[in-house]
């Protein structure tokens, strides 16, 4: 496949070692990396426009991936998975008393397509009569991109499995991916593009803000919209299916245990200003009250917040010993780092509802220590070794970790294919019934979508589920 590369460079008056230090400290290319070693999760932010533009036109492009090579004071090689799969090589070359910093970005056709979309060129895929087309709506950029890195790969794996089994009703399946850029208006437009491309169903691994906007946009179009990841629920509708974990189940699993093990009762809730956090905090208040605790304070922040120092300070002064975070994506990364770096870990314990493996990796090994998480699936735990083996075999090099967010999407696509084959691909009501049936606790079904919630604690850079 043809590849492309783009190079930029700058001359600086300082020697390569000093420039390397500045890069490591995040002063060049806004590198975020806990510890610059091979395998470490990282992000790099590229500002768009002059940084002062408002809204989506000015939102930076954040490359999410891992460090693939480090030669101290000389070069760093990064492999990134979002918003496109590519490589970024940063070289520090001595030039007289100063140095030249050369950045080379390599990308493939998919990457070029994503960039063209960013620039406004977003044609619909021409529909194909000989394919059963499925859409995937994910956050390839923006603050929510952190937790969905492996989702595209798992969706592709699911499609391959379905096609290996003969497709849906004998028709092969293909996948079209849409990007909401962590913004609900962009997500609604992307959902419309998926519809215009002939998708019969759209699997959404996005925030509830985008999901609700997409549901409005797709209302009456005949396209089914499936929320595969955790969500607070919502009004039932014939075109909408909500799967994933519910916050009530998560807090029921985690709150009483945390309170019993720490002997503490006072909580502080931190969330974002949209339906997910409102629903999650409502559920948490109920369970905290049932367990005899109290909520001393609660804050909501806009999606995309990076500075949580004020609320960290407020929590410290409130006397709360337990923190519930419903923050999503990069916001959660910043919050946990700031809690840890301001010393809150010595006086508080945190239960984070959207702390998955990818988010945890980006927080950094020690800053996430002691934080609790709760999902129906954690990588490396349970009977999913077959999927995990196939995932690792699907591509070379360092891959983004699996998490409940990508795994539930994979399961949802397989369940849809089964349902659409058993019923008929056009019988939306029957497909919807079958998908929802698996979310009730159904002992008769060999594969239930509704699984018990596992609690896990973050330690040494990994999430450790508790058995039993």
């Amino acid at each position: 496949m043809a590849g492309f590369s783009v190079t930029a460079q700058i001359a600086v008056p300082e020697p390569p070692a000093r420039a390397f230090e500045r890069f490591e400290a995040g002063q060049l290319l806004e590198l975020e990396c806990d510890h610059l070693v091979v395998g470490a999760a990282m992000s790099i932010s590229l500002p768009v426009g002059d940084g002062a533009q408002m809204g989506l036109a000015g939102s930076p492009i954040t490359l999410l991936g891992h460090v693939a090579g480090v030669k101290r004071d000389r070069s760093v090689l990064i492999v990134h998975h979002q918003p496109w799969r590519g490589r970024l090589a940063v070289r520090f070359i001595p030039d007289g008393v100063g140095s030249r910093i050369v950045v080379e970005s390599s990308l493939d056709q998919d990457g070029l397509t994503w960039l063209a979309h960013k620039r406004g060129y977003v044609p619909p895929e021409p529909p194909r009569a000989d394919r059963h087309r499925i859409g995937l709506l994910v956050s390839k950029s923006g603050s929510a991109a952190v937790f969905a890195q492996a989702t595209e790969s798992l969706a592709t794996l699911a499609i391959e499995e379905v096609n290996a089994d003969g497709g849906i009703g004998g028709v092969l399946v293909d996948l079209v991916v849409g990007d909401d850029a962590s913004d609900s208006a962009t997500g609604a437009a992307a959902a419309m593009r998926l519809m215009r491309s002939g998708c019969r169903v759209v699997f959404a691994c996005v925030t509830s803000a985008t999901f609700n906007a997409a549901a409005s946009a797709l209302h009456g179009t005949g396209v089914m919209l499936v929320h595969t990841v955790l969500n607070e629920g919502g009004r039932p509708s014939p075109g909408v299916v909500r799967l994933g974990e519910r916050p009530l189940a998560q807090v029921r699993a985690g709150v009483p245990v945390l309170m019993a093990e720490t002997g503490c009762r006072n909580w502080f809730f931190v969330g974002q200003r949209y339906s997910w956090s409102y629903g999650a905090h409502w559920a948490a208040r109920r369970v905290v009250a049932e367990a005899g605790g109290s909520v001393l304070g609660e804050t909501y922040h806009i999606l995309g917040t990076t500075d949580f120092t004020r609320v960290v300070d407020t929590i410290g002064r409130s006397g709360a010993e337990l923190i519930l975070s419903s923050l999503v994506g990069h916001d959660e990364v910043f919050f946990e780092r700031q809690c840890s770096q301001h010393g809150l870990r010595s006086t508080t314990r945190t239960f984070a509802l959207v702390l998955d493996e990818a988010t945890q990796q980006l927080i950094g090994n020690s800053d996430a220590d002691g934080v609790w998480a709760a999902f129906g699936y954690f990588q490396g735990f349970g009977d999913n070794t077959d999927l995990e083996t196939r995932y690792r075999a699907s591509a070379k090099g360092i891959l983004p970790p699996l998490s409940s967010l990508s795994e539930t999407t994979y399961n949802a696509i397989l369940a849809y294919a089964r349902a659409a084959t058993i019923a008929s691909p056009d019988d939306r009501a029957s497909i919807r019934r079958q998908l929802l049936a698996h979310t009730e606790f159904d002992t008769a079904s060999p594969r239930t979508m509704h699984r018990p919630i596992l609690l896990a604690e973050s330690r040494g850079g990994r999430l450790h589920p508790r058995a039993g």
Partner: protein
Amino acid sequence: MVQRAVTTQRNEELAFAVLADQVRRQILDTLASHGECSAGFISDQISTVGRTTVSTHLRALRLSGVVLERRQGRHRLYSIDPMGPANDALQFLRGLLERALGAKTSDSPMSPAVDPDGGSVRRRA
């Protein structure tokens, strides 16, 4: 007094830049969905700005190599240059990297082969 005039002008520039982005997207969306279109047809699809403004944006898109113009009698017909979005995307990425490094950006539309600041854009097989 001068300060306020500068600030107002800056805000207007920013507002224009955001609007320009929206108009640009709508023009590209129209061309992507309908193929070759006249300026009048494109303008009919966009309610937020008038015909003259749309023409200005079309000219900018043509100069940056994204859109092709063909004359048919008195009419001008516009379409997406098949190579345009790809070239535009690569130039855009180069500008992003330069900006991130703190280098002076080269925003002028140039073919990928030209490389005035020492940066480059190339295709590998």
